[in-house]
């Protein structure tokens, strides 16, 4: 387990280095000047925010994850020289620009109630019951402005207030749970948890059943894939590792 851990960290660190290994600073034509936590740095222009931070020598053990724009762990905020707007982005998906003020922020702390989508009634009041703070929304729209996924966050919070599960589910479908909305909300609402709950309630009670999924479940039940399972179960740890690595290589993202 511990060994596992280390190896994962190694991969991550490699990934970080991968950006610059074999690159001689002399060969880099374009540089940008940025500031990280108030300190000035000069970094190659073609890096992402996350890579730039690591290029500058910081080691990110939190606020970074899949590096592929899915997990939402590296959501961050930044400002640019001569602008008052506080921008938000996924650090792994956004290029550094000259004059960026950067800092990698930790995940916003949030209380997550544990509703039970099986037991809880599919009625409008349930959202307010678990997330009464949505009643504090002042429609200031800061959440929408801060969403790196460009979701209409305020709109779905308002929909939640009206107990409209469908609107919340659809409005928040592409949410990656990065938590920036919650971090910036003056009403201290935890939009993404609420939305997740709403999606699940909708999925369970609201949305029409998905044909293919039911078909596939049927196939599983009927043992269509039993053979394949047996084959995999038989493999040794190293064989498994190789298969996994091959797969990963196939969809290499660095």
């Amino acid at each position: 387990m511990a060994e596992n851990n280390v190896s994962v960290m190694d991969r991550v660190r490699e990934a970080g280095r991968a950006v610059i290994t074999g690159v001689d600073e002399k060969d880099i034509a374009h540089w940008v000047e940025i500031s990280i936590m108030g300190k000035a740095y000069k970094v190659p222009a073609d890096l992402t925010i996350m890579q730039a931070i690591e290029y500058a020598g910081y080691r990110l053990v939190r606020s970074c994850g899949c590096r592929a724009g899915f997990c939402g762990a590296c959501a961050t905020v930044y400002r640019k020289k001569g602008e008052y707007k506080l921008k938000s982005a996924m650090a792994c998906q956004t290029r550094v620009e000259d004059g960026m003020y950067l800092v990698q922020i930790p995940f916003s702390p949030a209380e997550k109630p544990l509703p039970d989508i099986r037991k809880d009634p599919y009625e409008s009041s349930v959202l307010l019951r678990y997330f009464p703070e949505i009643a504090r929304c002042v429609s200031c729209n800061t959440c929408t402005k801060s969403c790196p996924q460009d979701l209409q966050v305020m709109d779905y919070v308002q929909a939640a207030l009206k107990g409209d599960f469908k609107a919340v589910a659809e409005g928040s479908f592409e949410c990656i749970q990065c938590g920036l909305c919650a971090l910036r909300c003056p009403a201290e609402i935890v939009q993404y948890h609420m939305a997740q709950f709403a999606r699940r309630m909708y999925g369970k009670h609201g949305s029409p059943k998905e044909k293919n999924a039911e078909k596939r479940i049927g196939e599983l039940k009927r043992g269509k894939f039993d053979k394949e399972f047996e084959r995999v179960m038989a493999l040794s740890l190293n064989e498994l590792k190789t298969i996994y690595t091959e797969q990963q290589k196939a969809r290499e993202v660095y």
Partner: protein
Amino acid sequence: MIKKIAITSENVDFLEKISKLSDQVITKCDQCGTCSGSCPMVGEMDITPAQLMRMVLLGQEEVMDSKAMWICASCFACTVRCPRGLDVSRVAEALRQITLRQAVDHIDLNDIPDCEMKRLPQIALVSAGRKFTG
């Protein structure tokens, strides 16, 4: 126990603060008590609305310890009757805001019993959130 009060420059500061926040010329208050007589909630209060106005006028910050302002339902019954054209409900709001702006909430929406949560309409929760939490 009869309390002795001093009137100092801080008192004036408090009065000015509330006057500004409520946008009312509180010193115009004539203490006729119309607001108190008009108040549907006065029975629940520890000091009457007129008393509240008086304490603000004299800049007694102890008024912040009273419950009256939290019991006010902002129904403007006093507003439409005050012979001096004062809006007492705005003064009560100013007092609430001073507390709430120090991140001290009057109620915690999470403490509302589940049975109530099931019954209460949005309109009630949202307005309570507005008036009782900052």
